[in-house]
């Protein structure tokens, strides 16, 4: 049980700034996901929290205690590594029980706690095997088991699912989240997969080039992305972001857009909010250039002049390739961003939020 607080934490490697003034407070029991493209500083932030990387400047607190310069072993955190880092020369039981043994618990007590944790993760039958005799999914469970057996203050996850195949990944993320809820341990989870972030997080921290782009619940981030980067990163397919001017007269029709400088504004529309209407009644006209079938729905790529827009519609509603279509979207589902800074504009523009 712990709260975590990053205060103005920076990390530089030579000339490169990996993490730039990270300010974040993570509540007790919260599941926070750091997400962003590779090299955005998410893993470095996690490693600084773990004590594996030195902090260049700033402070890190666990509860009220300043741990900025403490050794990893003094921080009482458990980490699940991307490649699991199971000790290859030890059996599964020895791997899981190692930390307990270092705490000088008796042999019987270690064995009991190990088997209890192993039951919880359904790996009790694997205890005498060595890591190389396990499948990827089993190794991942052992790694999680090794983390929970210690009952630490904080769980750290460094892309723990990225080496699993897609089906396993889906079930594993549900299990990890359920386990964390049951144990109530504050957790920090790093991933580059926005779906993992959206499905697992209480709160998401989106990073890019060492800077935090937005911190918020999955719903907040999805509904009110703070800038074009967040808007484009979250959601699949990503939000359409076009210069407002490209939409022609459509821009003028919407009452919310009155008074907005068209040349300085980008408009964001999620693909699922784009619908097709008859050309005569449409404000925006586009030509269909590509259609991708993804199951019940399909992705329709259309061109408005030089700009491209993607619509996600159920299959019967899809137009044909080369067809000229009218596009429409609900007025309260559009997002406006400043063209030069990329920041979200007019916080009250999105009426439904």
């Amino acid at each position, binding site marked *: 049980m712990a709260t975590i607080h990053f205060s103005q934490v920076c990390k530089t490697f030579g000339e490169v700034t990996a993490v730039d003034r990270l300010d974040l407070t993570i509540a007790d029991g919260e599941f926070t996901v750091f997400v962003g493209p590779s090299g955005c500083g998410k893993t470095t932030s996690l490693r600084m929290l773990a004590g*594996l990387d030195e902090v260049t400047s700033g402070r890190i607190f666990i509860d009220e205690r300043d741990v900025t310069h403490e050794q990893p*072993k003094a921080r009482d955190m458990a*980490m699940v*590594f991307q490649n699991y880092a199971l000790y290859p*020369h030890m059996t599964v039981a020895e791997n899981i029980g190692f*930390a307990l043994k*270092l*705490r000088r618990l008796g042999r019987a007590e270690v064995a009991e706690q190990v088997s209890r944790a192993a039951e919880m993760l359904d790996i009790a039958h694997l205890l005498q095997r060595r890591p190389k005799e396990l499948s990827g999914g089993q190794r991942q469970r052992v790694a999680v088991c090794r983390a929970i057996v210690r009952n630490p203050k904080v769980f750290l996850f460094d892309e723990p699912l990225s080496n699993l195949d897609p089906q396993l990944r889906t079930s594993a993320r549900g299990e990890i989240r359920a386990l964390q809820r049951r144990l109530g341990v504050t957790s920090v989870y790093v991933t580059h997969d926005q779906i993992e972030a959206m499905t697992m997080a209480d709160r998401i921290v989106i990073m890019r080039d060492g800077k935090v782009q937005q911190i918020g619940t999955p719903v907040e981030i999805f509904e009110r992305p703070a800038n074009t980067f967040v808007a484009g990163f979250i959601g699949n397919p990503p939000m359409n972001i076009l210069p407002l001017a490209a939409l022609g007269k459509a821009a003028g029709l919407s009452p919310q857009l009155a008074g907005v400088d068209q040349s300085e504004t980008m408009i964001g529309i999620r693909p699922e909010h784009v619908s097709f209407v008859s050309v005569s009644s449409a404000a925006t006209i586009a030509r269909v250039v590509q259609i991708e079938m993804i199951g019940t729905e399909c992705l329709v790529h259309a061109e408005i002049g030089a700009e491209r827009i993607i619509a996600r519609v159920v299959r019967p509603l899809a137009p044909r390739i080369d067809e000229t279509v009218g596009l429409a979207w609900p007025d309260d589902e559009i997002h406006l961003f400043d063209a030069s800074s990329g920041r979200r504009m007019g916080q009250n523009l999105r009426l439904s939020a």
Partner: protein
Amino acid sequence: MTQTLELVATTRIERTAARRKIDLRPAVFLAPFVVLVALFTYWPLIQLVYLSLFKLNRSGPDRFIGADNFLGVLDNAQFHDAAYNSLIYIFLSIPFKVFLPIPLAVFIWTMGAKLGNFYKAALFLPTLLSFVVVSIVWIWMLNPVMGLFQSVIGPLGLQMPSLLSDVASAIYVIIGVGAWKLIGFNILLYLAGLSAISRDYVEAMRLDGAGDWVVLRRLIVPLLSPTILFVAISTVVFTIQQVFTPIDVMTQGGPLNSTTNLFYLVYQYMFESFNVGYSAAGALLIFLLLGLIIAAKMIWFEKLVHYS
């Protein structure tokens, strides 16, 4: 129909004929190696056995004398000294040449590339030098009258002892010089072994609550054990043979046989006292000793090692 049958029949015959013809290509490629090894390793070995069992006679046929040479050698006081010293060379070399490089290698492993490479180069340098040169330089440095060490401690009113002419110390000087020369090489071997250990393991263990000592003992040493075993065996074999040079250059086995070893003694039997039989018998005994070490490695030590 008949045509097809004939065709099948001919191909079958051709195939059997091809199978019967032995493919000589592997033999051609292997030949140079086989010839060289046979000529320079196995033929001398057979000769050695012959020489150890016969008394050579210039004016008549060689005379079979059974185990006389072996019994003679085993009864020889010089041989006892040499065997005893050989054991000292081996057992004292292990801590310095096999164990000491482990923490040094781990230390270099944890450094950045720049500093690490500097240390690697600095420690490897002695390996590149000729053992003869090294031995002569050390004789000069240790010289009690005009050596480097004397010039350092002389002004303090101290006198450098004559380490190489003292029965009690000469062998340790040779062991020290051998270790000085070999440590860098063994460090490189360990670094190669360490490079296969993922740093994630170390980090995982630190988060599990381990300090440096626990990481070294519970993680690095077990994962490095195949390399440690290899270094130990090669160092022992190397020590028995290679120490010949510093012995010959620095002490010639003296004072009072205190630095001689089996290798050096076999050389002396042959080229100083021209006792071919003793020399051959001694060489075979060394062969046996090394064989026993390899057998021990395969029977016992392999079990202690974790192969990933």
